[in-house]
């Protein structure tokens, strides 16, 4: 996991990061607009993108505030939707091993896309690190600029569905995990997680189905890896 990155590979990673940033920025336009139309001010909207910086939680928060939900429910839902970031950072700490201010910065940039890009380029640690930082920074900038433009221009793009932007999100995520779906066990994890998230959505509060589906996917992956894990334990002395 220590070989050098070629320049071509670095360029490819940076290009993908910028592409992802621009795509996310377009989605941020709609977040800015929706947030203002939900009753938040431009500055409150901008504060969410700067400080919270985890898109699904931001959308969940403004959706609940817009629907007249209470403070506790709003905060709890944002936290539940964002709780997956803890698992992403558990994954990223191994690769980044950050200290000092880098750890504080890495934490803020630990989101779906930066982790996804790092996972997609984890054939080398250097590639995963470059993918994480370049994606995190590109998205942080584009997400905040997009939020500001959307908030100011609220109403111009209050229905992202017209531009098909609501399909861009899942397509981006699928593209991110696609390189990992080479084994049948990972495909099973994908199928189980996706099916559970959809099946549980009508029955639980927003955010919870994703967590349950994630747990079901991990359980599936562990079950399928049992023989391998047993071998690893058996051959521990070797």
């Amino acid at each position, binding site marked *: 996991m220590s070989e050098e990155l070629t320049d071509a590979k670095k360029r490819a990673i940076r290009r993908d990061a910028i*592409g992802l940033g621009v795509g996310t920025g377009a989605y941020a336009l709609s977040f800015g607009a929706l947030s203002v139309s939900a*009753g*938040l001010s431009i500055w*409150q909207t901008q*504060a*969410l993108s700067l*400080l*919270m*910086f985890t898109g699904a*939680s931001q959308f969940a*928060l403004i959706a609940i505030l817009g629907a007249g939900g209470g*403070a506790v429910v*709003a905060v709890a839902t*944002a*936290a539940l939707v*964002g709780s*997956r*970031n*803890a*698992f*992403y*950072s*558990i*994954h990223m*700490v191994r690769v980044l091993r950050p200290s000092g201010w880098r*750890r*504080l910065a890495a934490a*803020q940039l630990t989101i779906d896309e930066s982790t996804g890009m790092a996972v997609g380029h984890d054939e080398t640690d250097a590639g995963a690190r470059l993918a994480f930082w370049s994606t995190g920074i590109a998205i942080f900038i584009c997400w905040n600029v997009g939020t500001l433009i959307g908030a100011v221009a609220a109403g111009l793009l209050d229905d992202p*569905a017209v*531009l*098909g932007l*609501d*399909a*861009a999100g*899942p*397509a981006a995520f*699928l*593209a991110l*995990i696609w390189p*990992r779906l080479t084994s049948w066990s*990972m495909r099973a*994890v*994908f*199928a189980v*997680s*996706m099916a*559970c*998230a959809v*099946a549980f*959505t*009508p029955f639980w509060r927003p955010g919870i189905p*994703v967590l349950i*589906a994630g747990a079901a*996917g*991990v359980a*599936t*992956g*562990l079950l399928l890896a049992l023989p391998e*894990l047993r071998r*690893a334990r058996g051959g521990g002395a070797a």
Partner: protein
Amino acid sequence: MIWTIVIVASIVCYGIKLGGYSVPQRWLDQPVAQRVTVLMPVALLSALVGLWTFTSGTTVEVNARVVGLATAVVLLVVRAPFLVVILGAAFVTAGLRALGWMP
């Protein structure tokens, strides 16, 4: 009030992110823990793909997004660049809506 919610929720969400960076390293040196940290992002991202493609709010629905995602799958299979995959999915979804074929 909204400011309080915005700030508190942001601090909680940041604390969640930072929390994962503060887990003792030895917890992560178990084979099962290593496997879980690899599986977890894939499982959660897969769940979000399902959620964002097939649901709106708390209802399950099939609309133009599903065809958009199918387009993404085809583009991924033929190894199209990342941006083409995303724009292709959005373009097909928007097109189906513009034509009035699917909501």
